[in-house]
């Protein structure tokens, strides 16, 4: 299921503004890779280039290549829609579909793609996904209630269930816990630990303890100044990044001596 991501010489732009410059890295399968760095350094932009969501933004454009195993996501003839089916995404703010029930939200990825699935099979997929997102016990008696009626933490887990229901190879998470309380955060962190058995996970976070807790490898991004493009400073095993990073800037950022 899980695939390796190999990024080479990637630049991303908003119109004429270069947001990230010359990023190359490898994301290992069945592991958690965390992106840390100051606001505006292009972590989220880079994350969105990994499933071609960057170009959804007006003016958004990408140069370079992103290899998913041996296929270039930006190669000629690649359909962004099928890329996004392979590389799922969870957003910063929980965004369940307000017109749909909990059940329909989880089924949305399949149903909106026009998949004809028998009721019993769909029930099984929904149950499996909700169990995968540790939400099943809380919602199994009210699957037909609106998804927007859940608490923030539950909504975010519903969004994770929705993302894993389409069985992607890779799961991208853009600050999935920044709008949540510590208990919901813990629930999601535990979940990330379980999900990495099956998926390749990339998570953007501002919380360095979180990066240290959940990730196997950590990438530090930084930008030279306002208006300058963000760059990858280094990527290494999380333990090494947090104990003995090879670049001074990383150590400064992690220890709070930033600037």
């Amino acid at each position, binding site marked *: 299921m899980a695939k390796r991501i190999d990024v080479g010489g990637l630049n991303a732009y908003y119109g004429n503004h270069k947001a990230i410059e010359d990023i190359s890295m490898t994301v290992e399968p069945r592991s958690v890779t965390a992106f840390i760095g100051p606001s505006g350094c292009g972590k989220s932009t880079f994350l969105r280039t990994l*499933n071609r*969501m960057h170009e*959804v933004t*007006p003016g958004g454009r990408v140069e370079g290549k992103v290899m998913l195993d041996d296929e270039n996501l930006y190669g000629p003839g690649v359909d962004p*829609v*099928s*890329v*996004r*089916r*392979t590389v*799922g*995404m969870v*957003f910063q*703010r929980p*965004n*369940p*579909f*307000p*017109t749909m*029930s909990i059940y329909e939200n989880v089924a*949305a*990825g399949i*149903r*909106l*793609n*026009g998949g004809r699935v028998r009721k019993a099979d769909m029930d099984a997929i929904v149950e499996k996904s909700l169990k995968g997102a540790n939400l099943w016990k809380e919602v199994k008696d*009210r699957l037909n*209630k*609106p998804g*927007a*009626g*859940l608490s923030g933490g539950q909504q975010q887990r519903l*969004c994770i269930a*929705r*993302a894993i229901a*389409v069985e992607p190879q890779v799961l991208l998470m853009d600050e999935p816990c920044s709008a949540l309380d510590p208990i919901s955060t813990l629930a999601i962190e535990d979940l990330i630990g379980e999900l990495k058995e099956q998926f390749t996970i990339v998570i953007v976070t501002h919380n360095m303890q979180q990066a240290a807790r959940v990730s196997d490898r950590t990438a530090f991004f930084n930008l030279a100044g306002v208006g300058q493009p963000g760059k990858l400073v280094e990527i290494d095993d999380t333990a090494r990044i947090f104990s003995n990073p090879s670049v001074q800037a990383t150590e400064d950022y992690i220890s709070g001596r930033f600037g």
Partner: protein
Amino acid sequence: MSDVTMEQPQVADRAPQPRSSLRQPRLPRWAPPAVAITAAAVGVAIGLGAGLSSRIQWGLIAALLFVLGMYGLAARVEGRRQAKDRLATSLVWVCFLIAVVPLLSLAWETVGRGSKVLDGSFLSHSMSGVLTIQPGGGVYHAIIGTLEQVGIATAIAAPVGLLTAIYLVEYGRGRLAKVVTFFVDVMTGVPSIVAGLFVLSFWILMLDFGYSGFAGSMALAILMMPVVVRSTEEMLKLVPNELREASLALGVPKWRTILKVVLPTAIGGIATGVTLAVARIAGETAPIVLLVFGSQVINNNPFDGAQSSLPYYIYEQWAAGNEASYDRAWAAALVLIAFVMILNLVARGIARWKAPKHGR
């Protein structure tokens, strides 16, 4: 303010705690209605005393007295900031009354006069064979005309308007979108008679078709389209971008995202917008006079021959100028208002039924 300064030493004598600066004298809750009643009474008295004949003048004097009275009273008792607050509040109330009084009197008048001849026979008979000076006759042919003309106009304008709005919000970038927006704005300002003249010269004079309900529908569609585009555009813009991204990130193609996520989320507002547009064109008379010609008999076929419609019927009966026709005009006005009202209720029903759900 004076009460406060008088109380202060007493409080200080009794207990050493400092005077609360958070508490201030307030007008009692019955003060605004009391001032309003007083102002109304004084307004009537001044009106009678000065021999002003117009009730509107009495009302305006009372309104002015109310606003000034509230301000003065609040300034004396509560202080300047509160007085300004009271001033704004009373102005809002006065404006609300000024807006609502004509509306209510219109409804009152229409219901009062219209219900005189409004009965089953009025709704189910045409004016065929009825002289305008005779009582009797009915509005059936006009209802048929309005329903068919407005229905066809909606069938043309709603899809075109909806798709235009979707283009502008979801796809439109660059020059074409700007041009479309510009022309939609221009179309919003087209007077109904101009739309009627356009269809008249194009459809009836150049292409040589006869008068028909359909010709009227085309003019109504021209009037309706920009309203639908505008309201739908606003509603689609209200759909949070996060929902689109959530759907796209699931690997859903853009057109399905629009169809299954964006439109259902906005459908309540879109339905309301379309209904308001329908309500706007249901009352149009000018294009009907030019293009549908008007008729006294039932014509069920909107594509051939003259028809009537409710606004045209009202105009025609009023122009006839006698008691029986006035009664019919008012009754038809009541029917028209009821028609628009029912449409509004339907739209609200759809909006409530389809609204994003938040229950637990």
